[in-house]
């Protein structure tokens, strides 16, 4: 029946079936087999649990460190980024007027900024700088 298989294939089939049989074994059987092999199930569970939890902790610390590094990098980019804010108050007001009328920028513009006539030149310049830092205004060529 199994003449056509090599010894390796036969052995692999046995080992695979034995490995899968563990998944069907009851908890009591597993505990008993660990004890038969000279393993303390509770101590082994505690050891493996500590090792796996340490892996999760290390991963979270790495992820946090990467996020912090990314945040620092973005801050540095903001500091270095040249603003696309026009130089004259009239040009800034014109640009701001254009921005607040664009639907895609609506989420960035609060109600108080939509009343253009009540805004000072300083308000507009400051708000355009905020938008530039957010990367919403185009970077100058």
């Amino acid at each position, binding site marked *: *029946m*199994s003449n056509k*298989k*090599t*010894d*390796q*294939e*036969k*052995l*692999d*089939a*046995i*080992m*695979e*079936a*034995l*490995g*899968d*049989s*563990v*998944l*069907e*074994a009851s*908890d*009591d*059987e*597993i*505990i008993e*087999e*660990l004890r*038969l*092999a000279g*393993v303390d*199930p*509770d101590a*082994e*569970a505690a050891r*493996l*649990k500590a*090792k*796996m*939890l340490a*892996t*999760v*902790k290390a*991963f*979270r610390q790495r*992820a946090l460190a990467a996020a912090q590094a990314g945040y620092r990098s973005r801050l540095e980019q903001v500091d270095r980024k040249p603003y696309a804010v026009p130089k004259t108050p009239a040009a800034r007001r014109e640009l701001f007027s254009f921005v607040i009328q664009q639907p895609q920028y609506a989420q960035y513009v609060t109600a108080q900024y939509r009343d253009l006539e009540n805004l000072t030149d300083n308000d507009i310049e400051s708000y355009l700088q905020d938008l530039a830092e957010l990367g919403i205004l185009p970077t100058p060529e």
Partner: protein
Amino acid sequence: MATKPPRRVPDQAAATPEEIAAAIEELTPADWGRLGKFANSRIRLLGPKAECEAGEDLLQLALTSLLEDIRRWNKAKVRFPDFLVGAMRSISSNWAKSYKPEHVAVLEADLRRENEEGRIFSPLDAVREQRPDAEQRMRDKQILEQVDALFKDDEQAQMVLMAWQDGCDPPAVRELWNLSQKEYNTVVRRIRRQVDAAGLMPNSGKGKTNVQ
């Protein structure tokens, strides 16, 4: 019929590191024992193809692949131990598929050629992947003989082993030999414990061979 690739668990269903840590906390000693034994069986099965030496390294890799979002666990649909088993099975199967033997017979050097892109190749490359070397074949034969010897007086165990070697899954084995679930479980438990006790581990290439 074309097979669809497995659908990736959506972001909102994928377990977070906090949920993964909580699931680890909830595993029982029997869960750990089962995972450890399964992991060891995969390493034994792969022998030199395994890319780590111990079962718990494979278990660790399954967890790492989850944390690094290579794999995702949908905790609403899959038990955590079942996820880890699936991940270990997948990782170890990938090792087997990508395995390239490191050592090359000396005489084969004469057959090596360089292609147009400067890559050195041997006509035996394709053959080698499919064929264990003489040492491995000898070891496999010895282990099979030892398994046979272990169960020479256990007819039921021999029947189950023979069916496994032919690739039968548990329902097929039970049907073939007309065994009840309980009888089958009892025989399998006997085989597993005796093989474990005899230390029959065909892990030839990683310095952890238990077979002399």
